[in-house]
């Protein structure tokens, strides 16, 4: 059973990540533990990412990477999914516990609301860091806000 502490921790991490924004050097990353009890293979964390023109230009796409910070477990892989307006993509961190994140995934949906989720392939708690940036066609960072919808 997910407790409030963990949920608050995830939300706090997101808020801190937004505060970490400094000029054009971005810190839109959030860390959390998914399936902290280690018994929910279907555990999914879900958030809305709102992309908008903050003066640096209109959004072309949402950029996402995921990093599984837990030690490797055979058959237990962590992925991020992005959905907007009838299009969906995903990316997996295929090497857990190292210093590298997954390759990036992008959905080109312009300004608006994107849905970003994190899930895994089996039971087991996983610590992760997800990075997300709304970017222009020239890969310049533009307005990025996040609202957490579901933490499991």
């Amino acid at each position, binding site marked *: 059973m997910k407790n409030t502490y963990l949920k608050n921790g995830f939300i706090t991490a997101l808020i801190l990540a937004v505060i970490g924004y400094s000029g054009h050097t971005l810190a839109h990353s959030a860390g959390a533990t998914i399936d902290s009890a280690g018994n929910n*293979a279907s555990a*999914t964390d879900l958030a809305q990412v709102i992309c908008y023109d903050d003066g640096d230009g209109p959004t072309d796409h949402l950029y996402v990477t995921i990093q599984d910070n837990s030690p490797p477990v055979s058959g237990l892989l962590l*992925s991020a999914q992005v*959905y907007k307006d*009838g299009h*969906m993509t995903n990316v997996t961190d295929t090497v857990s516990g190292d210093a590298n994140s997954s390759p990036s995934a992008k959905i080109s949906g312009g300004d608006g609301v994107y849905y970003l*989720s994190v*899930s895994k*392939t089996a039971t087991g708690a996983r610590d992760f860091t997800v990075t997300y940036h709304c970017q222009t066609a020239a890969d310049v960072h533009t307005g990025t806000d996040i609202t957490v*919808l579901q933490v499991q």
Partner: protein
Amino acid sequence: MKTPSIKKAFIGASILAASLYTSLAMAYGIGSAVLDSAGNNASATDLASVNCPDGTDHFSAAVLDTSSQVAGLLVSVHIYKDTQMTTATSTNGNWSDIVSVYGGAGTYYLSVRKTNVGARNFTVGWDCRDSNNVSTGTDLQVLQIQ
């Protein structure tokens, strides 16, 4: 490059399977397709919308990876509606768990994806159900085939 025939095959299989009774035992709809047929797109995702009619309590789905097992290459199904999302993964050649989102009537999104590059054959089953687990009927529209 995905060909229209694959999309047609997926849709055709979905229609044909509407009356099939499978090991899933709950499937109102079932369809098969190849994900990442070229075997070079780790992010390949197939996506459909499913309209569940009035009287629906929840939408359920499961996936079966029918390709030979490859370490680190797993196929998952996802259900999304409004502020809820869930997932299940097929392992060891078996159907995944049946997972559900309790979102009432309306549009659910059903996707299938995998964890690495490599073509995967899969079968997915889905069902809109009332609070007594009775099928309420489904209307599936394919949005994306990769």
